[in-house]
């Protein structure tokens, strides 16, 4: 047990942060958008090998990259390309961005589908890997802070490439990815709100000076911190129990993070110009993925105590 990053891990995080620092700002034209997908950042992450970290170094390091990317105001697709693809297709460099799609709900809007080159489709027992063609996806406007898209015609699954018996593996790493993205988004949302409440004065005091605000901010900070370690543990061990626990913890706390942090930012927080929504509405998007809270909680129970 050692919860300090190695020198190599620290160097990796610092290098990712440097790229993100240079490419995280929303362009002026996108200041009022619900999200901004930065294609240049995506390309740079690929070209510099950061989306191959899961394959080349390990899943823990891939999760560290996911967490850092999730702190950025702009969107890049990192989790599926670096964490999931490395586990499902260890010997292949599948072109990203990659969307993860539930086979039971093919016609719904899916996160990252509008920017995706490929999709993993969860078919229960198996996983289908399908190319995504731009002319077969329509953009779905949403306040959820990711690009969302919907298949115009559902992909042909009968002839699609299949990864037999990989469904459970996909869902496990999907949960790790959800937890890691939530950890990064939660940390960024807490930092954003903390800056606001320290600067904004009400009734002659900074908002941060009120004890009721302080206590709830600390609870949000605690959630974000715990989530960071839970997601990294899940990535490091690859154990289904750890993945379920991390996703369960993330998804049960989305409400608290979104409600409290927006409350403290007041009316400013409901405008797109204020950046908070870029992270809180990512959390909302993650809240129901990979089965959502109830399924992750039930899976924790099954793994710990078996059925009935």
């Amino acid at each position, binding site marked *: *047990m050692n*919860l300090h*990053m190695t020198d190599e891990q620290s160097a990796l995080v610092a290098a990712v942060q440097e790229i993100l620092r240079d490419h995280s700002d929303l362009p002026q034209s996108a200041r009022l958008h619900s999200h901004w997908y930065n294609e240049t950042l995506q390309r740079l992450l690929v070209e510099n090998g950061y989306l191959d970290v899961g394959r080349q170094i390990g899943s823990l390091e891939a999760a560290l990259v996911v967490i850092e990317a999730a702190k950025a105001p702009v969107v890049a697709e990192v989790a599926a390309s670096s964490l999931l693809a490395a586990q499902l297709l260890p010997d292949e460099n599948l072109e990203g961005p990659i969307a993860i799609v539930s086979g039971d709900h093919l016609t719904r809007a899916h996160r990252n589908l509008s920017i995706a080159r490929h999709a993993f489709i969860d078919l229960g027992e198996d996983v289908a890997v399908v190319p995504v063609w731009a002319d077969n996806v329509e953009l779905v406007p949403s306040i959820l802070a990711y690009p969302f898209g919907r298949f115009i015609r559902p992909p042909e699954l009968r002839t699609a490439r299949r990864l037999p018996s990989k469904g459970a593996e996909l869902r496990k790493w999907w949960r790790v990815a959800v937890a890691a993205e939530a950890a990064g988004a939660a940390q960024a949302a807490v930092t954003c709100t903390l800056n606001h409440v320290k600067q904004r004065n009400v009734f002659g005091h900074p908002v941060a000076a009120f004890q009721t605000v*302080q206590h709830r901010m*600390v609870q949000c900070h605690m959630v974000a911190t715990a989530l960071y370690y839970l997601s990294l543990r899940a990535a490091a*061990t690859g154990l289904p129990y750890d993945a379920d626990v991390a996703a*369960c913890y993330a998804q*049960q706390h989305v409400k608290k993070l979104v409600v409290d942090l927006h409350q403290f930012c007041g009316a400013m927080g409901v405008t797109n110009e204020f950046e908070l929504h870029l992270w809180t509405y990512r959390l909302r998007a993650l809240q129901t993925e990979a089965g959502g809270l109830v399924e992750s*909680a039930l899976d924790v129970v099954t793994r*710990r105590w078996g059925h009935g």
Partner: protein
Amino acid sequence: MEFDWTPEQIQYREHVRAALRELLPPDWDQVYVPQSYGSDAAIEFSRAFCAELAKRGLLVPHWPREYGGNGADDWQHFILGEEMKAAGEPRGPQYMNVNWIGPTLMRFGSEEQRRQHLLAIASGRVIWCQGFSEPGAGTDLAALKTRAENRGDHYIINGSKIWTSYARKADWCFVLARTGAGRKDVSVFLLPMSTPGIKVTSFPGLIKDGHLNEVFFTDVVAPVSARLGEEGTAWKIIKYALSYERVGVARYHAGLEALDHAIEVLKRENRFDDPVLQARAGVIVSKFEAARLLTYRVVDQRVQGTSDTTDANLCRIAALDAVEDFMDFLIQYVPDCLAGGDVLLEDYYRINIPAGITGGTNELQLDLVAARGLGMPRRT
């Protein structure tokens, strides 16, 4: 980063478990655990049990060799603490000795105090109690009224302490007393409970026997040599001691063990097959696991020598969140656990009733993290 235990740590945990299997009597769960670790019976048991642990090097493994330890790292101490807590804390009040009283004496004690107390603690035969809270001073310790008047070569102590766990059976008391007019003019004294002028009474309450005591000090004579550190330096000492106390109790481990037991009960009674109950249990597990990792982070900081943060306070907040959820779960799904239904679950529930109060209230932990951890300003 490494989230797995090393082979040596796994082996050590097995070694501790084997010692527990060997040393605990067959009726431990039925007789001692229900009475709780603060009861007179458990305290008396702890004297023999801890002495045996000491002989096997399992009482203070993380202490330096000169004080009876093995110089092991804090991970061994925490593995030991997890297993002891999960077994119902057979060390009784002596968990406190090894967690924070000993380390505090090592840091602030005179050579004579260290020689006198540390080897005694390491032998497993001495019981301490903590004379902090008073009727008018709990979390706000600076409001305490017990006074130690400096008479040159000795002090005269008058006042009273309350909520003093284990006081009935304790050999020594770690006492806070006012030694000046200023709010923070407070000193620490190490007093034998047999000192003339010290009297203990007990009263009933919601939590288990042994915890609700009042200690009265009437013209108690304490030599200057009984003072720990310089006069008026109690806050520095207490801050150090509490940073150990806040992560010293493995609440996540004991909570998960108790939850495992509750699920066994529910399965036995064919009441486990309820998805609402199961989803709640899953959420509680995840909260205990969160508290576990936050605690491990603090242990890791200690091992690396980087700890002086509010992360220990954060552990308490996370653990309490899980404990409170689980207590509510127990009443919801094992409703007779407080009415003779299951002695182990009743013990868990009742021991944890003051979990958000002892060692500084949850609100104080939140205040400390807000101010020192997040840099949030105080209202002026």
